[in-house]
């Protein structure tokens, strides 16, 4: 698909885990303000793809560009770039030894060099936005999974990132907590945040995504609008996948 204003570009990206070829010359472009949902069977490489975009996974060949610049190697330059690309994990990964407020403020102070009071003020705004202002002084372990994930989103937003990556953000949640997280994500999508979302939530893909990318065996098999993809998948592999998950 042609993208007008690319923010994240992958060109011919390859990665192996031993003998397993997890990413097979993947090309993908994510435009500014676009919401791209990545779906596919487990082991298809979608999480690896997501993590490669901020180099939590290194790749063996190919190019990854963020805002026109290639991803730097390890070091300060990479750290600076990561601050521009937020990430939300399946297992939340809130800092267990810090309060909710400190979780959201920490990187603002350390990376963005904001003053503590300024960072805390911003953190409270963001916590309010995800509906958790009252929980600022609790520790992560005192919150439910859905609440922890919303804090994690606030923490990523606190860096004012250009894009957000979501690596299966609702897969570790109880069913009744999934919606509270998806609602926050829907709102972000409406506000024009650039998002790459690896998920199994087909409802979210239908309603919030501009594009659906279907991956299987390390390759991007389909890359289309949600309506097209869900009503008339082109490939046998996607038809098979959809028939399995949409049956119930």
């Amino acid at each position: 698909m042609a993208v007008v204003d690319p923010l994240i570009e992958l060109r011919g990206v390859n990665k192996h885990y031993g003998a397993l070829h997890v990413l097979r010359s993947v090309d993908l472009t994510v435009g500014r303000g676009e919401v791209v949902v990545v779906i596919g069977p487990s082991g298809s490489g979608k999480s690896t793809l997501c993590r490669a975009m901020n180099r939590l996974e290194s790749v063996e060949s190919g190019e990854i560009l963020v805002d026109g610049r290639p991803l730097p190697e390890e070091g300060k330059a990479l750290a600076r770039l990561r601050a521009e690309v937020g990430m939300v994990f399946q297992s939340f990964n809130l800092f267990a030894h810090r309060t909710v407020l400190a979780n959201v403020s920490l990187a603002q102070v350390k990376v963005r060099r904001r003053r503590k009071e300024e960072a805390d003020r911003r953190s409270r705004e963001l916590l309010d936005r995800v509906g958790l202002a009252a929980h600022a002084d609790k520790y992560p372990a005192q919150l439910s999974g859905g609440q922890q994930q919303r804090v994690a989103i606030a923490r990523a937003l606190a860096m004012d990132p250009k894009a957000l990556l979501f690596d299966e953000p609702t897969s570790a949640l109880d069913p009744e907590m999934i919606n509270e997280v998806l609602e926050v994500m829907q709102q972000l999508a409406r506000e024009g945040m650039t998002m790459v979302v690896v998920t199994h939530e087909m409802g979210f893909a239908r309603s919030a995504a501009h594009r659906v990318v279907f991956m299987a065996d390390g390759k991007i098999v389909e890359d289309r609008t949600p309506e097209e993809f869900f009503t008339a998948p082109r490939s046998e592999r996607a038809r098979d996948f959809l028939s399995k998950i949409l049956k119930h």
Partner: protein
Amino acid sequence: MDVLTDNFSLYGKGFLGTVELTVYSSALALVLGFVMASFRVAPVGSFRVFGTVWVTVLRNTPLTLLFFAVMLGLPRFGLVLPFELFAVLALGCYTSAFICEVLRSGINTVPRGQGEAARSLGMTFSQTLSTVVLPQAFRTVIPPVGSTLIALAKNSAIAGAFSVTELLGTYKPLSELGYDIVWTFVWIAVGYLIITLTISALFHLMEKRWGVAR
């Protein structure tokens, strides 16, 4: 009993010597161990190699041999220091290898995702280590660090053989003066107990204060 009351100042000097050796060597071992543990988990390969070589060499050298190497070897390269300083150097470096491994095992108890989350926010390696990983690792390593420092306190006895004033060495003048050897050693043992039990108590307090709540 006489042996203690008659020679209190001699015992006292030895006791203080051991305390000094223990405190200074512990400080050196903790600092070096911390640096080496950081090296061993660093993203830069040459740092990891350096840390691994440091641990492998020091942990596998008998401490007495290390004392000989430092006391006799370093002066050959023109480095002449007081024996006390050489002893602190040998003890501190030796123990740092063990502290390093204790810290590294603590780092490994912190879930991978904690470091990944910090890095994904743009924190550098050293920020990630110092503000996210080590504070959580610290809670789990309090007991084994205590054990390592107790071992250090007792290992300091070797310094006595290299004319450093310390507790065990006090038996020589006392036995020359004809005191009963059993009681001489009993009081030396009590001296070591005071030091090691103090370390135990200190780490017990730290564990209560900062240890992981289970």
